[in-house]
Structure formats: C-alpha cells, structure tokens
C-alpha cells in the first residue's frame, strides 16, 4: 500500500492514490478474497488439496487415452486436442463470471457481498473492478486448475530428462492457459455484447455458423484448432492468439455496460395450471406438486430458459463425439455407440441438477411446513422431468449418427437411465444443494469422481472391447444400469435426511 509521492493526505486524513497503486491494491484484495472464500467453505487443506486431485485425474485420464489410441506421449495430438478442448470449454464457462458485474447475477444469487459489489459504495469504476475480477479469475484458474493438468504430464514422460520435462510442462501450461483465457474472453465478449442490446438469436446464429464452418470447411477447422491448441500451432500463431485474446478482453470490458438491466417482466399465472398437470398423483405429500412447479418455472423463466440443460448436455455430447471420432480415425477402433454414449451422457445429470438448484436455497424453504427431504424429493421429480428429454435428444442423435445396433441402442438406453439416476443420486448425496461449490472441495470432488469411475470405467471398457455388444455383455451392462440406478435412487432418498441433519447441526 503505497500512496503517491505527493499524496501526504489532507486534513480529513484521506490519501491520494494513483491508478497503479489502487489497481494493485484491488487485485491483491480480490485474490485474497478468492482464497478465503474457498478455504472458508471447505477448510484450508481440502481446498489446497484440490489441485492434487485435478493432477491425479488428469494423469489417469491422459494415460487411459494414450493407451486406447496407442499415443506417443505427452505431446500426442489426440491428447493435446482433448485437454485443450476441455480447458477452453472450462474457460467459456468461467467467463460467465462477467455476469457478476451487473444486476443480472444479483437476480440469480441475490445481494452480492463480494468486493465486486463495492463499486456501488466506493469511488471505483465498475468496469475496472470487473476487468480485475476477471483477470483474477483467469490467474486463479490457471494456477489451481490448469497448472495441475499440465503438471500431470510428468507421469507420461518419466524417462525424459528433468529439464526437458519442465520445459514441455511449462509450454503446455502456457498453451492451456491461453486456451482457457481465449474461451473466457469469448464469453465475456458475448455478455458485453448482450449488455449492448445484441439479441439472443444473433448469438445462436454466430455459434451455428462457427460450428458449421469448422465442421465443413477444412481451413476454418484448422484455424479453430490453431487457436484452441497453441502448443502445436507454433510460436507466431500462439503469440497472435495471445494478442487477439487480450484485445478481445479489453474491448469486451470497455464495451460492457454495467448499467444494463432487463426491463420489468410481467407474465400470466402459470403456477396453478402447471402444478395441476404434474403427474405425481393424489398420494403425494401436500405441496409436492407446488415445489416441483416452482422449480420448473424458475428454470424456464431464468436466462436461457429450459434450453440451458439441453445446451450443457449437447456440449458434453459434442466433446464425446469428437473424441470418439478422433480415436476411431487414429486406431480404427470405435466403441459401441449406445453403450458408450449411454454411459457418458448420464453425466449431464450433474449439470441438469446444477441448473435446478441455481435459483433457490434450502434456507428459503424453512419458513414453510415442508422438510428438507420434501425439497430434495421435489428436485428429483423435476430432474426426471427435465433430464429425460435433455439426454434423450443427444442420445438418439448419437445412436443414429454412429449407427448403433438395436441391442446396443436398447442397452445404452438402460445405461443412460440408470447411470443418469446414479450420477444424480451421487451428486445430491455428496454435494447437497450446492453442486457448484463442491467442485473445489478435494474430498467431495474426489469422492464424486471415484463414484463415477466405479460405474463408468467398466462400462466403457466393455463398450470398447465387445463391439457390437453380445447378448451376454448387453445383459450384464443392462443389469449394471438397473443396479446403479437403484443405488442412485437410494442415495437421492437418503440425501434429504442426511443434509437435514447437517443443516440443523451447522446452522
């Protein structure tokens, strides 16, 4: 904290800060807040151990991928593309933090108590605060998330010299960080454009054109790959990507309108009709329909509407489809599409549940005569109603596109339903009502990952080895789907009492 040379203060004790000192002060405070937020939520060591969990997962995933494609090591192009796609995708997601600069996020999470909210009370520019907030996020994730991913490459080249490994891991870290920053900048730019009145359909059209261009035109596809994977694009292209990302971020923050707010919205009464139409029967507890209807209306009226879970599932589908295509083109081995996609697409249960819990919290239900178990039960019903069509569309596209046999498609459908319910139950049991927060808790994240791996890995192995599935393997997989579905149902049923006990003990 250094005041200006001429900033000795005035009679009221105020000091004059130059822009650089104020910026440094703010940036340091934002970083400190980020650390304390996570350390306070999970306990210091559980948060500190999170990068180790990421490193372990990344190393395991990379090893499995290379084994399956017979890859050549740390710089294998399949591995590079996969890990960069994943990181850029996470960057796209992390860029949504830009919502925090406007009233839009307050509509979702309520009054913000973070430093970001101080622009309303202190003489700070909201744009500058937002820019520093995003820069802090980029640096934070580059260290906590991206660095462990890059460092996990050490296990892939154990025989190389330490210097060579360090150089490669360092370059990989910079490359991944750039892919992350590029993804983040794109989202921030989109949000900034939205605050300037660019309509939603224009974004949808731009995304469709970009995807179609990358898919159909080789040169566009190559350009996109060069941007997403700077590691293999060469230094000049990587430098160009870095400059472009920086420019895009600067322009986005400059264009961002912090005063943007949606006009007041009025709607007709949908609650009663929706509540009456829900197929829960007369035997359900009083209020169950109401709890489900409220969740569905909150989801459908929030930004992005009911399409949000579908978009999340489609992104997962696109990533997996790209991976299957790459593996197939390199090795000539393609998995049984029904089994493969059925097992993997069930993971969208996590994102769907996340969307269903974005607009309320358990505390709010404590003024009504309902128990926490009732709320969790209603969320499960809403999950089934929203999640089923959400995964069905990409699943049908997958089995159609990759030409699954009838048995494969049926077995995959059973896996999809069973595993989806299992992943849901696991998420609810481990994370309770805050699935987003548990991402940075090493213990919970590790537990969730282990739980997923126990079900998914054997199914994927069978899906790769027995193509198309035989009656025996199909029966075994369908049995696994039903069994894990039952486990998911039990877990989700026990989540209510579990979190009720915890809630009453903690509050």
């Amino acid at each position, binding site marked *: 904290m250094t005041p200006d040379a001429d900033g000795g203060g005035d009679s009221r004790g105020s000091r004059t800060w130059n822009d650089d000192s104020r910026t440094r002060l703010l940036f340091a405070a934002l970083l400190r807040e980020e650390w304390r937020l996570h350390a306070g939520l999970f306990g210091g060591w559980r948060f500190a151990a999170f990068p180790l969990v990421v490193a372990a997962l990344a190393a395991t995933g990379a090893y499995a991928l290379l084994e399956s494609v017979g890859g050549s090591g740390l710089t294998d192009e399949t591995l590079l593309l996969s890990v960069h796609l994943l990181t850029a995708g996470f960057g796209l997601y992390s860029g949504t933090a830009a919502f925090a600069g406007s009233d839009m996020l*307050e*509509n*979702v999470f*309520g009054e913000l108590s973070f430093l970001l909210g101080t622009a309303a009370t202190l003489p700070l520019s909201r744009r500058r605060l937002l820019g520093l907030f995003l820069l802090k996020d980029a640096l934070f994730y580059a260290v906590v998330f991206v660095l462990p991913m890059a460092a996990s490459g050490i296990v892939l080249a154990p025989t190389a010299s330490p210097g060579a490994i360090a150089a490669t891991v360092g370059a990989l870290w910079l490359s991944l960080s750039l892919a992350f920053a590029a993804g983040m900048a794109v989202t921030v730019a989109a949000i900034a454009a939205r605050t300037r009145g660019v309509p939603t359909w224009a974004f949808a059209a731009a995304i469709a054109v970009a995807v179609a261009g990358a898919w159909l035109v080789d040169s566009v596809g190559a350009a996109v790959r060069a941007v997403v994977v700077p590691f293999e694009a060469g230094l000049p292209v990587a430098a160009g990507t870095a400059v472009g990302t920086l420019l895009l971020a600067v322009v986005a923050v400059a264009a961002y309108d912090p005063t943007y707010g*949606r006009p*007041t*919205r*009025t*709607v*007709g*009464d*949908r*609650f*009663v009709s929706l*509540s009456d139409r829900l197929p829960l029967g007369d035997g359900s507890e*009083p*209020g169950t*329909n*109401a*709890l489900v*209807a*409220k969740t569905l*209306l*909150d989801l*459908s*009226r*929030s930004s992005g509407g009911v399409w949000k879970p579908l978009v999340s599932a489609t992104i997962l589908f696109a990533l997996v489809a790209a991976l299957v295509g790459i593996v197939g083109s390199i090795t000539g081995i393609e998995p049984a599409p029904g089994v493969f996609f059925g097992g993997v697409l069930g993971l969208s249960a996590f994102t769907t549940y996340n969307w269903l819990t974005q*607009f*309320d*919290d358990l*505390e*709010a239900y*404590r*003024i*009504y*005569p*309902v*128990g926490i178990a009732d709320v969790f039960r209603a969320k499960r019903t809403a999950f089934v109603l929203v999640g089923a069509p959400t995964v069905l569309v990409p699943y049908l596209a997958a089995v159609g596109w990759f030409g699954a046999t009838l048995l494969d498609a049926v077995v995959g459908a059973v896996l999809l339903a069973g595993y989806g319910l299992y992943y849901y139950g696991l998420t609810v049991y481990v994370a309770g009502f805050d699935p987003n927060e548990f991402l940075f808790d090493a213990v919970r994240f590790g537990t969730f990952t282990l739980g997923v791996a126990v079900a998914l890995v054997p199914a994927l192995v069978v899906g790769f080895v027995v193509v198309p599935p035989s009656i025996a393997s199909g029966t075994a997989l369908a049995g696994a789907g039903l069994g894990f579905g039952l486990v998911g149902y039990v877990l989700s049923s026990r989540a209510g009492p579990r979190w009720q006990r915890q*809630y*009453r*003990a903690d*509050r």
Partner: protein
Amino acid sequence: MAAIRVEGLCKSYGSVRAVDEMGFRVDRGEVFGFLGPNGAGKTTTIRALTGQIEPDAGTVRVLGRDPTTEPIETRRHVGILPEQGSPPSFLTPREYLEFVGSVRDLEPSYVAERIDRWTDRLGFGGKLDTLHTDLSRGQQQKVMIAQAFLHEPDAVLIDEPLANLDPLVQEQVKRFLVAYAADDNAVFVSTHNIEVAESICTRVGIVADGRTVTERSLEDPPADADPLLEVFLEEVTDAEARDLPASARRIVEDGIDDIDEPNREATEP
C-alpha cells in the same frame, strides 16, 4: 397456556455460546418485542422457535408443539417472516402466494380471496403479475408479509417487520399487527428498532449475551417509567459495550440525557 414458551434454551456453535439460558413467554393477545443488540442471540432463538436448529438444552414450545421434534407441524401452524427477504424467485407475487397456499394445503378459492385482501391492504395489486426478481425491495417485503399471514396463523414470528417499507405502509402494518394480536393471536417481533417496539408491542424482552436480561410491559406504563431506550442501554452489558464503537460506548456509559451535548457543540456554528 402461553402461545410461545422458551425456558433454559442453550445453543453453542463451537466455542461460541450463542444462546445461554434464554427464557420468555408470549401469550395470545400480545405483541411481544424481542429487542437486543447485534449478536445477542435473537436469530438463533428464532431458528429454535421454527425448528431450524436443535438446541443443546432447554424447552421450546410453540402453540403447544415442540419445534425440535415437530418442525413441520409447528411451521404449519405459525406464520414466519424472515429478516432476509426470500431469495429471488421467478414467480410472480400471485404465483408465489399460490405456491405458499399449496404447501400449506389451503383451498385455492380461499387463497384467491386472501390474495385479493392482501393486495388491497398493502397496495401491490398492480404488481401481482410482475416477476418477483423485478420487484423493488419494498414490494418484495409486502409479498413476504402477505405470505406470513396467508393462513391466518394463531402465532406469527416476525424478524424486522417494517424493513424497506415506506412510512405509509409501515403505519398500516403496525396497525395490522396490533389488531391481529388483539384478535387472540400471538405476535412475536424481533427488532432493533426501539421506536417500532414502543409503538406496537404490549411487552418487550431485552436480550443480551444470549439471554433475556429484562422484560417490561408497555401497556399502561407508570408515569415515572424510564424510556425504553434508557432501559435498553442500561441492560447492555460491559462485555457487549466493549464491542461497541467509542461514541456508542459513551452513550451507554453516560446515559441518553447526555447524548446530544457533544453533538450540539460540534454542530454549533
């Protein structure tokens, strides 16, 4: 029988004793004010009254029920207005009150009639179909007041009833609370605002250090009774005074008669 009865209530969070041998009762027909400084144990007590937490010790009864063992039944029969407004919801006030009616298992026709009555009373009829997220805080508070009374409960637990309301509506709500209690109901009001307590409460309990340190009737007080503010300040313990800013500590130490002296000197030309 008391509508609300608390005896020897204790609750700790780790090494912090939030509530320590708390005790009071609220009878039907009363507006009971629960007054205390920040951190005195008011919120923890309300959580115990509504079954949100399990006390370490003590007895709590609300309308004859134990909220610890019967939290849902307790909440079914009382109305609760939390200090924090509900988190933003994408329901409209009409839909939200229908939602509350459903979880309270009320007849739709009854709910519709109550919605009309409350929109009329608090004046948010023009906002009935506006999304809750787009309402001002004052409008949101009106909706929350309506939900607390939707089922005409025998007892209501209210945390800062007048927050964010304009003076006109504040006056309406005050009158309503007094009339509601007079109709053989119990109204429990937790507040920092001594003027509010003086204007609507029939009795107050002052809490400090996690316990009720004194109770006082505000009905027909003797002519020589100390002002409530003075009583309140006298009951602030030394321990709490240590956490107060210096200026507030001086008020505690000197009494309210001396409050204006330094300020007057400072503001005189």
